[in-house]
């Protein structure tokens, strides 16, 4: 996590990054609980990504913070001031939406200057600021075009410039990349992070894309059924998931039947340490990451719990995912493409499982992941 920041905004007056605190925030839609007493604090200058399946409450959290919806209970404070009942127009928050939200009848420059115009900034200062912001997102040459004349990626950059132009206290990003193609998405993701660090603004980013959340955030909050399952730096969320839901939702996991005893789990004859050493003894399903599994070609290998046959190799670029049939179950291993290339389908392989700490699944059936049960 980055330390709290005090930054100056590009071309604007100095503005201190603020702390955002949400306490006991609840929101119901009829009988459906969208948010259940959520507590979340964003440190000054921090970027938190909220991640979770559809309907977990991440967008509701963001909309409550933006003032676009009212909380049924709880409080929101920004820089110590309670803004729970303040209207969206007076919250001083910049927001980028999932859908393209530029005003179609205005040029790019007019869109960026819109918030400043509402604040009665002089025409010259408005234009200067709008161009600075467009420069920040690399679109100053498109200033006089209309939204329909620029690409989707450019539209979202303009939306970002428009949100930042008013020098908001908090930046809210509601799945801003989900409508873009993969390449533009990756570029813009990095650009958002660069700009966020440059401006030093406290930011809440909502996404359902794990890669995006892990790549961009100081801390990732994994949500489920209206509450936070885990809020931690991306590396911790991935390698030390707090719950089996997080382990299964973030990244891929092999589900292997095993036996828990004395804070360890024995899987196919291999003993692995548990993240949660207080897990009760008994049969369990261990969640093993594909990268913890390594394979070695062994055509002469006899049958055994960790001997199998390669049934599929999925090319992912630099990495490949190899699926191995172990007879009673199958297991995935993630290898470099160079290593995977010597293991064609049909090869006999010997498996090794690295003794990383693992979690056991909430679901005792190896074929039914807890995440699927949730959805």
């Amino acid at each position, binding site marked *: 996590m980055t330390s709290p920041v005090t930054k100056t905004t590009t071309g604007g007056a100095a503005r201190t990054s603020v702390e955002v605190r949400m306490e006991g925030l609840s929101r119901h839609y009829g009988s459906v609980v969208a948010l259940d007493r959520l507590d979340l604090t964003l440190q000054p200058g921090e970027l938190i990504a909220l991640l979770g399946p559809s309907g977990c409450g991440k967008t509701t959290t963001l909309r409550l913070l933006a*003032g676009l919806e009212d909380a049924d209970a709880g409080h929101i404070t920004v820089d110590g001031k309670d803004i729970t009942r303040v209207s969206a*127009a007076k919250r001083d928050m910049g927001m980028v939406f999932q859908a393209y*939200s530029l005003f179609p009848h205005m040029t790019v420059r007019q869109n960026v200057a819109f918030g400043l115009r*509402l604040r009665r900034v002089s025409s010259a200062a408005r234009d200067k600021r709008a161009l600075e912001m467009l420069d920040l997102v690399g679109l100053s040459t498109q200033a006089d075009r209309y939204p329909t004349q620029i690409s989707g990626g450019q539209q979202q950059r303009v939306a970002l410039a428009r949100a930042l132009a008013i020098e908001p206290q908090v930046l809210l990003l509601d799945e801003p990349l989900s409508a873009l193609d993969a390449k533009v998405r990756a570029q813009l993701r990095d650009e958002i992070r660069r700009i966020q660090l440059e401006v030093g603004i406290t930011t809440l980013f909502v996404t359902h894309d794990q890669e995006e959340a892990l790549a961009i955030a100081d801390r990732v909050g994994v949500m489920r059924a209206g509450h936070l399952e885990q809020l931690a730096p991306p590396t911790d969320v991935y390698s030390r998931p707090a719950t089996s839901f997080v382990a299964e939702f973030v990244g891929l996991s092999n589900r292997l039947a095993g036996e828990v005893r004395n804070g360890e789990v024995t899987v196919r004859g291999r003993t692995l340490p548990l993240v949660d050493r207080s897990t009760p003894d008994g049969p369990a399903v261990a969640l093993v990451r594909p990268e913890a599994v390594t394979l070695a070609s062994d055509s002469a290998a006899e049958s055994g719990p960790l001997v199998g046959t390669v049934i599929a190799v999925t090319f992912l670029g630099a990495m490949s995912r190899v699926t191995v049939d172990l007879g009673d179950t199958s297991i995935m291993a993630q290898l470099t493409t160079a290593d995977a290339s010597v293991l064609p389908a049909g090869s006999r392989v010997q498996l090794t499982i690295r003794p990383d700490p693992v979690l056991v699944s909430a679901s005792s059936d190896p074929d039914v992941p807890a995440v699927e049960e949730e959805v």
Partner: protein
Amino acid sequence: MAAVTGLTEALARTPGGRPAGMQVRRRRRLNAFRYVVFAVFGLFFVVPLLAMVRFSLEGTKLGTWSLTAWRQIASYQGSGIPPLSSAIELTLELAVITCVVTMVILVPTMIWVRLRVQWLARTMEFLCLLPLTIPAIVLVVGLGPIYNKIQHYELSALMLFWVYVILALPYAYRALSAGLSAIDVTTLSEAARSLGASWFTVMFRVIAPNMRQAILNALLLTWALVLGEYTIAYLLLYSNLQVELYSISRNTPNAGVLFSTSSAALLFAFVLLLILSFVGRRRRGRG
């Protein structure tokens, strides 16, 4: 050889499996049918209009040409009826007032309902479309006492605009509704609100400008309705353009001015349509 023949046949077939030649013949037949339909319907509309224009240009002797009827539009007065120019003036004023009042009432209300009180949308649609289902005579019976009072106070015939606004509601509502559906009202308003816009700013500086084409369409429909309205004005004993034209046709032998005035009204509507389509095209051209 059989294999080669099979391949050639396969290439000549379309993905749907029909031979390409059959497709071409089918397309030609379809095009011919379209042209015939277009021509028949074109003649159906154009011949009466051309005939009307021709009659308006008829001279004193049969088969001759003259602009007299067109020159008489502004000055013509039949026996026992007011001058035609006053009816034209009244109708144009009514059209302007009706357009303005309809838009002032309908545009903000529809945007507000879409933004803030969605649950009222169905009720509003029902109320706006209701005038379509009410026969003019029923409207007149209902409105009669009110207009009797108006006439008692000797208020202007421009008061007809109230009933014209009601008559125009279904058409204007449909045009505006289509325009509202074409834009992402929720996202645009939320974006504007997050930038600090009041609800007034959201409605009039963000949403309404993006409904320009829909507003123009609604204006055109309202305008055309007022220009062509006869029943209500006649039954309420007001003399607008259509009532006046009818009176001329009944009371005077000079049919030329009847046709020239009708042609002029039609021409005016065409010019308006052209202007609207030009405005719409210029806007789309940006994209």
